[in-house]
């Protein structure tokens, strides 16, 4: 099984985007970690280093964007939040196409501990009008989706992950990726497992285990959290009639929240949410923490069974 970290896909995408001379990279002293340094090494003249100043980074990017440039600004997911009000009032409100990438999202980030583990980024950025929110599952899809961002005329937030997880896509399957369209990775009629980020591969593993017990699950990579692919969810409501959402994020307001909102307004169906249950993280290994917080493969299997029983 090949492994990849979505942050590496971000670094690769920036290099591919570089042929567009208006693409610029903006950094806040975490380029080594977010992988924007890949771009800086080759295009130092188009890389703007601002030191450790996330609030500043947001509005410098907005100024660049209204002057004909396409800024890609990155830091850790958690530290983008330092500039949240700047993003809200300075980027989203005037609808300026700044592309923000928050790496090291989620508790899977690991031993740095709770201060570095953003479990609320998807939720808060999702509340902003005009904002696109994506959270790809591997390096290949991150690269493809980041490249698509360059053509968008509105701001975006992309969450990437620190650690390598099993690759979901190859060049061929990635070529069909489209922002705003969930990807059906496995089909089954008993339950729909909707996942994002590092939890997609865990969900596929859970579905394989469920199949051994005769339970057939659909698995969706919902890489775009906003705008949510409501049509796909409505179809799954009629087809499967039970849902599990799986995310390395708080169960409040993120993918689970978004799916719950769609279901309750359009096609009520039982939903179990796997994620961080309203507490902060702590130091530990990524997979160790997922197990401890009830987000492992077995927890997805159990949640699927509960969702089916509730039909």
């Amino acid at each position, binding site marked *: 099984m090949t492994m990849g970290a979505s942050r590496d896909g971000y670094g690769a995408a920036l290099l591919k985007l570089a042929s567009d001379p208006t693409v610029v990279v903006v*950094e806040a*002293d*975490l*380029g*080594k*970690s977010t992988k924007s*340094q890949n771009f800086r090494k080759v295009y130092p003249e188009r890389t703007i*280093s*601002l*030191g*450790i*100043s996330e*609030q*500043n980074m947001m509005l410098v990017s907005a100024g660049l964007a209204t002057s004909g440039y396409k800024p890609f600004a990155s830091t850790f997911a*958690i*530290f983008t939040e*330092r500039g949240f009000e700047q993003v809200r009032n300075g980027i989203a409100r005037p609808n300026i196409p700044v592309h923000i990438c928050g790496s090291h999202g989620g508790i899977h980030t*690991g*031993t*740095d*501990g*709770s*201060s*570095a583990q953003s479990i609320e980024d998807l939720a808060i950025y999702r509340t902003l009008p005009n904002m696109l929110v994506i959270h790809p599952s591997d390096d290949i899809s991150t690269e493809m989706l980041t490249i698509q961002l360059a053509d968008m005329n509105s701001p975006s937030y992309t969450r990437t992950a620190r650690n390598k997880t099993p690759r979901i896509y190859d060049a061929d399957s990635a070529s069909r990726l489209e922002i705003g369209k969930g990807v059906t990775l496995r089909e089954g009629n008993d339950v729909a497992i909707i996942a994002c980020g590092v939890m997609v591969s865990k969900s596929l593993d859970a579905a394989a285990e469920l199949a051994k017990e005769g339970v057939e699950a659909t698995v969706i990579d919902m890489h775009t959290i906003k705008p949510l692919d409501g049509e796909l969810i409505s179809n799954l409501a009629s087809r499967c009639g039970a849902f599990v959402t799986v995310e390395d994020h708080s169960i409040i307001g993120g993918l689970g929240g978004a799916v719950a909102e769609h279901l309750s307004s359009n096609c009520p169906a039982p939903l179990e949410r796997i994620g961080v249950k309203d507490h902060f993280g*702590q*130091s*530990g*290994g990524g997979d*160790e*923490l997922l197990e*401890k917080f009830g987000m492992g493969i077995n927890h997805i299997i159990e949640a699927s069974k509960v969702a089916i029983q509730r039909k």
Partner: protein
Amino acid sequence: MSVDSDGRQIHSIEELEATAMLCRRGIVTMVHRANAGHPGGSLSAIDMLVALYKTRLNVDPSNPKDPERDRFIMSKGHASPAVYTILNEMGFISSADLETYRVLGGVCQGHVDMKWTPGVDFSAGSLGMGLSFGLGTALAARMDGSSRTSYVMLGDGELQEGQIWEAAMAAVHHEVNNLNVFVDRNRIQNDDFMDKQLRLFDVAAKWEGFGWAVRECDGHNMSELLSALEWMDSITDRPAVLIAHTIKGKGVSFMEDNPAFHGAAPNDEQLAQAMEELQ
């Protein structure tokens, strides 16, 4: 060991240097064991922490939450190994606790955390926040009519955060005289040397411009550090900042002045070499 007229223990320079050496060994060992962490900024800061904890800070390991304790706020919370080793030397945490650095359920979290570690006054990890917090504890002490003092340590990279200067302005406006700051001026941040990332130019002039009492010293020279602490005591009309010129990774040749060891662990061979050097 004897005591001075304020009842403080008097430590010889040699004793303090020996403690700092033990802490340095502890720092490198912890980061190696965890195979992650931040050795560079811990090794640059440790001499200041030893001088402060051993000769100044009024804290009691048997009563770590004493409301009348002095406060130490490690704003650059990634330098947690430095804090953990001095807390171990002071008796707040055990040597076994040091082995839990970055381990699931461990007392020693990746970044200093007041919920997990006795003796830690501030949950850090997000840079730029500690000076505001220290201003809060200093204002509270004044309102209480208490003589307790707040000490804050900042990274020089951390000075790039705007919030630092918001707090610096407010501290002078409010005329706090019980707030003392150490700037660990090691000239390196996460990605690279600060001069390549975002220059600070004249740091002392910046603080002076905000109205602080400013002094500079060699942050690895114990006697200079002790006189700087005396100097902090002597400033009674303003907050005081010590700009301590340091070497990131100090004490381990291959880590010294090397941005690669901001946030990387030594391998087994490097650990052995570091232990050879740290004698």
